[in-house]
């Protein structure tokens, strides 16, 4: 039987920090978090999905980075982890059109940020860092700018990598939301060695 992880639970900490810590403890032990924990809130599942994607990509990137540059600053890892827990929060309620006035459809900002992260992370070798929805998402038709920071793979031209991330995010948002996208700004903050740890071509 799995024992729930214990750890510091300072009440001043944001609850989402505890979520990341709890989930990470299970993953570090090679265990799957129990359904009882995952079903506690949408934030738990959003955080777990993000963590699994992050760990999958980061494992290769960290090894490659370590081989190439032992003294490399790995603050991007903590930045991404920090952003995952921020984005797991529900946030604002984003309206969806409903067929009758007596029905109200919406999607949470946390769900949309999770969607954006998943879309960006699905581009091979890329990892989404900070993710922001600029504009009043609670008002239909308001122009919204999506701003993401990303780590992209070495070897691919940065503009092309940014375009792939932008296309993935746009497709996902058009599929699941009715946001009026003014722009999707991709800021590349890191370039990583290939996932399999190969040296970049000279």
């Amino acid at each position, binding site marked *: 039987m799995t024992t729930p992880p214990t750890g510091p639970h300072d009440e001043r900490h944001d609850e989402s920090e505890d979520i990341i810590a709890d989930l990470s403890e299970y993953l570090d032990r090679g265990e*799957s978090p129990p*359904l009882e924990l*995952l*079903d506690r*809130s*949408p934030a738990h*599942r*959003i955080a*777990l*999905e993000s963590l*699994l*994607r992050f760990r999958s990509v980061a494992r290769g990137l960290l090894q490659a980075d370590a081989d190439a540059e032992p003294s490399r600053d790995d603050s991007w890892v903590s930045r991404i982890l920090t952003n995952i827990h921020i984005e797991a929060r*529900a946030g604002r*309620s984003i309206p*969806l*059109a*409903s*067929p*009758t006035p*007596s*029905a*109200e*459809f*919406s*999607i*949470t900002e*946390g*769900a949309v940020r*999770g*969607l954006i992260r*998943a879309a960006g992370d*699905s581009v091979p070798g890329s990892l989404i860092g900070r993710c922001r929805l600029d504009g009043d998402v609670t008002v239909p038709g308001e122009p919204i700018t999506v701003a993401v920071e990303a780590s992209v793979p070495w070897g691919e031209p940065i503009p092309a990598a940014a375009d792939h991330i932008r296309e993935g995010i746009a497709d996902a948002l058009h*599929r*699941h*939301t*009715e946001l009026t996208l003014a722009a999707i700004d991709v800021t590349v903050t890191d370039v990583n060695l290939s996932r399999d740890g190969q040296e970049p071509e000279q």
Partner: protein
Amino acid sequence: MTTPELSEQLTGLVRSIDGVVQVYDARPTALAAAADLVATVIGQPAGEPIAVTNTGGGISVAVSVAISDASPAAEVCRRILEAISGHLGSNADGTTVDRVKIQVSRISSGQAGGDAGG
């Protein structure tokens, strides 16, 4: 039919809808905690996640779900609305629907595995 019975029926109904992978507690957190505490004290089961309230003008329903990436969020919301409206409309006690709120709280990319399906 009592409100808890209706909530239980609707929860089961929504869980069975294509595209819904989980149903979350749509009741306000403090209210849900208080209600579940009272239920425990008096030996009743804890409340169902779908919030059903009688507003006087009819029944108000609030639903919070995780959905799969396979269908657009708005489409899954429409399926849920149709199922709830159909269920309430078929009730013999003449229940009228005042308001239905459906919130998508998560879109599952299917990578975490182990979605409980409700």
